[in-house]
């Protein structure tokens, strides 16, 4: 049988995540074992959301026994991109027995941290703590900023562990961009997605589409599990990044929502089976969850506007 070729070329930053989802859809839809050829020769750059999604897709397909033994990865022609991809253990995920001609030397590159996987609440909290420590070591983030990132990440990993309804867990990646005074954190799961999760709460109105579901999910006190949860984690995370001048991006099904430096929710032409949350944090601006809470002082009722 011919291998299923997934060919990634050029750049895959936030604006091209739709394209990546479209390219990965044959893997999402695999029903039987298939040899994969992940062709990254032309890959010139990849952002954290795309990287998290790519790794999650390949790991999940491997977990499900859908990746044939002869599957392989063609590394990027660009040496720095190839090194980056290798550090993320992408090759090992697809082809654990792949022999390299030259021994790969792992270097502690500035701003880099390998992908982290988590399966439950405790692991998610641990990953959040680890990412926060890593970012403080590499950025000018003070203790309050570090704690705020850690707490926001805990909210998102809690959502994965509790709402995504997937045995495959979640994946977190982060990267510091020194020249942009910013860092990105992406957390992805390939679970049921936000619309299906919210539908489990019969007290909520049924969203017309995925965009309406994302808007609902970003509204305070909206949760699929009101007995356990308060429905404030995503809202506070979005406000935190808004106050920092960064951005929170939430993508699920056929929709994406941007909050913070942009405020837009739109439908997409491709469907992500699961949820992808991305935090763009400015390391040159204050980041303080207390500032978010102080906005609740005068604006009670339904809470402050995002």
């Amino acid at each position: 049988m011919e291998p299923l070729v997934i060919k990634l070329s050029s750049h895959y930053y936030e604006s091209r995540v739709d394209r990546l989802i479209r390219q990965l859809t044959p893997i999402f839809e695999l029903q039987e074992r298939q040899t994969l050829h992940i062709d990254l020769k032309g890959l010139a750059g990849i952002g954290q959301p795309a990287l998290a999604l790519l790794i999650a897709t390949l790991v999940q397909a491997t977990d499900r026994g859908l990746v044939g033994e002869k599957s392989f990865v063609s590394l990027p022609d660009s040496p720095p991109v190839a090194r980056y991809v290798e550090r993320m253990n992408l090759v090992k995920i697809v082809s654990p027995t792949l022999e390299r001609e030259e021994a790969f030397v792992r270097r502690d590159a500035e701003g880099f941290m390998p992908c982290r996987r988590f399966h439950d609440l405790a692991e998610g909290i641990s990953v959040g703590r680890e990412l926060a420590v890593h970012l403080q070591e590499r950025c000018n983030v003070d203790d309050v900023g570090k704690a705020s990132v850690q707490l926001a990440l805990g909210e998102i990993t809690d959502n994965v562990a509790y709402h995504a309804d997937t045995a495959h867990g979640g994946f977190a990646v982060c990267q510091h961009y020194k020249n942009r005074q910013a860092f990105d954190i992406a957390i992805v799961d390939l679970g049921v997605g936000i619309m299906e999760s919210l539908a489990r709460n019969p007290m909520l109105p049924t969203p017309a589409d995925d965009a309406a579901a994302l808007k609902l999910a970003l509204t305070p006190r909206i949760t699929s599990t009101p007995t356990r949860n308060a429905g404030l984690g995503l809202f506070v995370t979005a406000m935190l990044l808004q106050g920092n001048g960064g951005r929170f991006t939430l993508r699920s099904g056929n929709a994406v929502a941007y909050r913070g430096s942009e405020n837009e929710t739109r439908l997409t032409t491709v469907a992500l089976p699961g949820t992808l949350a991305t935090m763009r944090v400015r390391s040159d601006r204050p980041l303080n969850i207390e500032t978010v809470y102080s906005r609740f002082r005068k604006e009670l009722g339904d809470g402050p506007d995002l």
Partner: protein
Amino acid sequence: MAQTCEMQTIRPSDTLGPALGGRPVAARLRTQIEQAVRRGSRVLVDFDGALMSPSFVDELFAKMSAEVRNSELVEFRGLSEGTQAFVRFTVDGRE
């Protein structure tokens, strides 16, 4: 005869660090406070130097029985005005 009342001081950040997150941790702390109050002990919970996640606030304060939360035996100290407002908002959401 005057009654003596045991006083318990809890500083969550001493054992958990300055970032207080995670529902299981908050639930354990809530149970500890509720049990102490039901025994008739006074409890001082000092949050000085700590930040809390929304889930932690919900699990600790909003899920705490109103009887315990409003008891004169419990004192929450070290909460900023902002966090106090958020706690009120979260508690209101469950009442």
